[in-house]
């Protein structure tokens, strides 16, 4: 029992301090650098240590020091308690969703099977939906407690947007559950290890293409980033977090970047096979024409974990690319897209999937 607890603790620490936080902080730099590349600028490259610049990587440290040494200003007209907890709620909701995502196949050490996943809850990604929906409170509380017109308007827009797209998100996932008959993420990943004709992997993006196309924009809407950044609209209409400064504002941003990582992990897990590598079975590569390549179990495991991380990094990059490519939706377009276009399509996807399975 004690070893079990220690292993779990190690996994918790590893996920938080090795995957989520480094990736999220690295993303702050990647985002600036990527925008620079796309806009033909040199970008974040000023910070140096003893003349050493390393493509501006030190900007991460500089940003951190800057935001945490700034004055933490709580407006006197704000509801102090709610104002202070709002950024934590966002960070918390984003972070805890990672607990059920499997980042590798179960490994065997000293006769014990260790799942590379913090906790295998049998409600699976319903847990993610549950805590994802808690993220709305960060917007509600920040907007309401700030006692500011802009913040309140931003919060109203934010809540409307997040709840509208939450429905589409849920319905898109129903299609995935139909295919795999389980809400547990390890089951879904295992199901995606099979192949059609020995060649095409049964990844979610092939079994549920429409669900993927609906899930991606809906999930980006949940992260409140461009093109769905109407709750925040940093460049002109501003939003729910405008009275925040210093470390608390940084927590909002950190929460947002963690959401990007979590969303990438979810996309990889649900639609791109999770830790599966195409044609890689437990014993090594098995191709459709019968050719095989034997591999040691350790190599297979390492390859699989690497493939998961690679997919996560890819989807992080894709989201940044989207953010710097598209303009913002107008609010009426946003609701129209959610309720009148994506929702009927999502319902249709569920019905068609069920019908195909039936026949």
């Amino acid at each position, binding site marked *: 029992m004690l070893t079990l607890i220690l292993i779990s603790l190690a996994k918790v620490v590893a996920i938080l301090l090795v995957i989520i936080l480094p990736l999220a902080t690295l993303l702050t730099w990647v985002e600036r650098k990527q925008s620079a590349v796309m806009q033909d600028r040199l970008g974040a490259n000023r910070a140096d240590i003893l003349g050493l610049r390393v493509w501006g990587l030190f900007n991460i440290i500089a940003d951190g020091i800057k935001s945490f040494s700034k004055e933490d200003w709580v407006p006197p007209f704000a509801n102090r308690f709610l104002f202070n907890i709002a950024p934590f709620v966002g960070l918390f909701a984003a972070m805890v969703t990672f607990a059920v995502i499997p980042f590798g196949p179960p490994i065997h050490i000293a006769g014990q099977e260790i799942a590379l996943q913090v906790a295998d809850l049998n409600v699976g990604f*319903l847990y993610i939906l*549950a805590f994802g929906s808690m993220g709305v409170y960060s917007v509600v509380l920040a907007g309401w407690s700030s006692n500011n017109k802009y913040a309140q308007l931003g919060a109203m827009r934010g*809540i409307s947007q997040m709840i509208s797209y939450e429905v589409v998100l849920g319905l898109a996932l129903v299609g995935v559950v139909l295919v795999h008959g389980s809400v547990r993420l390890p089951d879904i990943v295992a199901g995606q290890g099979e192949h059609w004709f020995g060649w095409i992997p049964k990844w979610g993006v092939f079994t549920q293409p429409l669900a993927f196309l609906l899930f991606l924009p809906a999930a980006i809407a949940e992260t409140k980033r461009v093109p769905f950044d109407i709750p925040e609209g940093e460049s002109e209409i501003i939003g729910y977090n405008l009275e925040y400064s210093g470390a608390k504002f940084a927590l909002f941003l950190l929460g947002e970047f963690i959401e990007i990582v979590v969303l990438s992990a979810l996309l990889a897990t649900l639609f791109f096979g999770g830790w599966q590598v195409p044609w890689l079975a437990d014993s090594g590569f098995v191709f459709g024409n019968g050719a095989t390549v034997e591999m040691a179990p350790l190599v297979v495991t390492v390859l699989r974990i690497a493939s998961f991380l690679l997919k996560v990094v890819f989807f992080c990059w894709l989201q940044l690319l989207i953010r710097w490519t598209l303009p913002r939706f107008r609010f009426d377009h946003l609701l129209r897209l959610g309720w009148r276009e994506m929702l009927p399509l999502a319902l249709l996807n569920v019905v068609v999937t069920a019908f195909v399975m039936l026949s």
Partner: protein
Amino acid sequence: MEGILFVLLSVLALGGGLWVLLRRSPVDSALGLLTTMVAIAGHYMLLDAPFLAAVQLIVYGGAVIILFLFVIMLLNLRQDRLRARRLAAGRWVYALAGVAVLFCLAGIFLAGGTSGAVDAGPSGTVEAFGEALFRRWVYPFELTSVLLLAALVGAVALTRHAAPKAEDKA
């Protein structure tokens, strides 16, 4: 461990309930209710009903209370405006209703109505829930949809006729 969690969650649930009653600001009350709902989700977890726990969070935490907060923000319910009307003429009716509910609950409890509810075996998973819902409780399930539809149509119709003049302000 389980005992500690039970006590902790119960204190949270009851504290949330008291918070709802005692706070003047409606937003504070709504957040108290949220605390109660989340604590009850924790209780479901302890009772080995993870699906119910998730549903509790998704529906009550993520939707119903958000709707309450929405209404509070929309109607501009500020505490100084509410103070005047707080517990006005109908206070005895409220008190009576509260006592009546208490009696009902006590009656159920004394009649042993809850004794069989807890040890129903491993029934809290999504699969078990689906089996029960779609085999045994099909008709209530379908009727639920009618109920929901009626609620939606009624509420939407009421909003539409309530304040057509307040349009386009936001």
